[in-house]
């Protein structure tokens, strides 16, 4: 008889019968999810049912990494099965947006940056490239398309203020992503303006909400002026451009005639495999288990910030696996793939020694496990690696002269 007492029910797992690496015992979620993806592709309904039942029994967003993975993928499978992926995603996003406040967004971002270099790595690299490219310029315009709520800019403002020669005028145009609520962005803007005043940097702040999809961003929406030096900062942005619009997007960026384009992306390939659900699942499981493991090891176990980041992670998984087109896109690509697209209109520039030094100093301040690895082969830029796995990629690009 099933015990309905809430304290007794939760099952734990699991053992592999085949003699395998004992570490594999921990990776049951990946195995099950993969099997399920295969069963769906094969339309093996009894197997699907069996696997979903097992996953359901074991999944919980409050458990260990495997249990979380199972829970999020189950949600994605549900969305996919009901062909309600986009609806689920947009509803989740708007729900999150309603609950979000400036205070919670700030808390999550700053805490995350305190315990992990996942975002700060890209910030330091990009700011370094921007400072170098804008040396000697007196009017700067940064077009910021990122998902880090402007936490990149205070250190840049400080660097501009202490540059020694005349402090340039900075205009910051933020292209707001789907999940960034208007009220939050407005508050962020107010803080940025006040801070810039404190720093003594002449400053203007402007938010652009995308009318259609990111891939269809136009120059007019950004309001560029003739006498300014433009930098485009894309942190976690390119993956939100629909796959078929990506090449055109590169051209749009080039047309802005920027001095530099900084690109920071997460290292995973969810694009090549988008026709093949099994391979896509595999890539997703691999990437997200690394990410969840990193969160687990970086935060304290009951951190609310970690929980909110995990929720965002689950939305992201839903976005990748259950959304095909529409306004939603989170299809990451690897460095080599982005480089192929970017080299059509841009040439890579290396980060200077100061920036490398700053990045190494940055990583020193966090826990063990992080390191900096230059990209090789047909990819330019730098990787941030977690336990020897490249996870974040940062690069800087200059337009090829026409």
């Amino acid at each position, binding site marked *: 008889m099933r015990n309905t007492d809430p304290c007794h029910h939760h099952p734990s797992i*699991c053992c592999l019968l*085949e003699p395998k690496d004992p570490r594999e015992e921990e990776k049951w979620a990946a195995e099950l999810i993969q099997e399920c993806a295969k069963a769906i592709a094969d339309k093996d309904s009894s197997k699907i049912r069996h696997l979903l039942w097992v*996953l359901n029994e074991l999944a919980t967003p409050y458990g260990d990494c495997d249990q979380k993975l199972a829970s999020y993928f189950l949600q994605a499978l549900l969305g996919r099965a009901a062909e309600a992926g986009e609806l689920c995603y947009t509803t989740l996003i708007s729900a999150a947006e309603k609950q979000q406040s400036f205070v919670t967004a700030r808390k999550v971002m*700053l805490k995350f940056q305190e315990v992990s270099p996942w975002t700060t790595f890209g910030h330091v690299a990009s700011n370094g490239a921007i400072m170098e490219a804008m040396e000697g310029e007196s009017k700067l315009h940064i077009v910021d398309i990122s998902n880090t709520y402007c936490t990149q800019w205070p250190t840049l403002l400080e660097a501009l203020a202490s540059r020694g020669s005349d402090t340039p005028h900075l205009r910051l145009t933020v292209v707001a992503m789907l999940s960034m609520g208007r009220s939050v962005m407005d508050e962020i803007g107010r803080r940025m303006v006040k801070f810039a005043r404190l720093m*003594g940097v002449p400053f203007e702040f402007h938010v652009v909400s995308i009318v259609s999809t990111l891939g269809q961003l136009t120059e007019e929406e950004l309001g560029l002026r003739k006498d300014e030096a433009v930098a485009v900062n894309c942190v976690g942005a390119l993956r939100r451009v629909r796959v078929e619009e990506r090449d055109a997007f590169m051209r749009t960026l080039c047309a802005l005639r920027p001095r530099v384009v900084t690109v920071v992306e997460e290292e995973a390939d969810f694009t090549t495999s988008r026709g093949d659900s099994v391979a896509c699942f595999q890539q997703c499981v691999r990437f997200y288990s690394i990410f969840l493991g990193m969160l687990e090891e970086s935060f304290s176990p009951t951190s*609310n910030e970690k929980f909110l980041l995990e929720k965002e992670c689950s939305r992201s998984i839903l976005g990748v696996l259950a959304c095909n087109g529409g306004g939603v896109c989170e299809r990451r690509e690897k460095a080599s793939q982005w480089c192929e697209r970017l080299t059509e209109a841009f040439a890579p520039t290396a980060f200077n020694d100061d920036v490398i030094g*700053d990045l190494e100093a940055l990583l020193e301040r966090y826990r063990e496990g992080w390191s900096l690895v230059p990209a090789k082969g047909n990819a330019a830029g730098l990787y941030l690696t977690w336990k020897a796995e490249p996870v974040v990629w940062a690069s800087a690009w200059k337009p090829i002269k026409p």
Partner: protein
Amino acid sequence: MPWTSETHIELSGGGKLAIVFREAEGEEMAGEAVSKASRPPNPCPDPSLPPVVKKKRNLPGTPDPEAEVIALSPRTLLATNRFPCEICGKGFQRDQNLQLHRRGHNLPWKLKQRSGKEPRKRVYVCPEESCIHHNPARALGDLTGIKKHFCRKHGEKKWKCDKCSKRYAVQSDWKAHSKTCGTREYRCDCGVLFSRRDSFITHRAFCDALAEETARVSAAYTMTNTASIGSVDSLLQDGVATPNIWKHLSPNLKPNIMDREVGQQDRHGCSSWMGHGGRLDNAFDGTTAMSEINHAGLVDSQLSWIHCNKLSSLPTSNTLKPLMGSVPSLFTSLPHRPAPDVSATALLQKAAQVGAISTTPFSGSFGPSECQNTSAGDGSVFDGLLIHEFAASNTDEVYITRTRSMLRDCLGGATRDFLGVGVQTLCQPSANGWI
């Protein structure tokens, strides 16, 4: 239904996966509430340095047009031991230093006298062609300056800080940095202390102490406190719902009971992957038309389905909120109603949240692994001045002007310290503003 304790799955890559279900031994709640920082307080460095009288300097790279321009070679600029001692071989950068050293060997020594006449001013250009100081119009005014510039910008960074791995080409820069690396602390107006400059700056930019007066800060704090706790619970409801659905469906999805055929109606969406004879229909009461799934995705169907089933018989896991009294939804957030028995996890999550807030006096600061709370009032008089000035003034412009003049007075005008830290900047800020 007998409770299956074990199930096997054939893996397509070969092999089998066996899942064994064990009753958990009660609720093990790992982790404790966020702990407070345990670092002993460090005294704030004394900011009231005596003002130093300095010779008026030109801006770097704006030389006197009458000056003589000297172009030295890279070798000359990098040479550190141009003047070696004949006894012990020790090298010196300047002849004067060598002469003084020779005294130690009891050798005859001679210091050159400064010539009486005022020598013609000399300025130096950088040999590196791509450098801005290669242009005589941007030449630097002294020999040491051009040497340091060349070494820093175009030289090899041989000196590395062992605490933070920042690299330096000039030894004196490295020494100066090492003295203060890791020892400097930054305090925000809100009272939180930081050991990392970058986190201090980022915090400061968004800190409530920056944006609002003290009185308004406390009001905002109480508001956001309740708001965010409310949201945590509804977040918990959100995240929990998916497994919930499947749990209710599970008795019907279990592999042992496979053969309940219900009429093959067209299940929009589900049949596409379930194949024919979609079993999903078992999970739904007759009263819930599958057509409800078509409406607004899955949202309404779940809710009506949940209501239709006997709520009392729903199994709940120790990590899920019971459905009675509150209606969790996967996709929308409903207004929060306190559930009759809140799960231990939810309580813990709440505790963590409240714990984090209560350790900090202002909402502008956050839980500490490297920060420490001190009340805004103590510390340097200088900081206190800043806060009072801010509260009193009505316009930000006035605030800025006052801050600047106070800073100039306290620090002799040599360093720009806009953050009210009151600490003399000893080393060059890096390109990014790091360290």
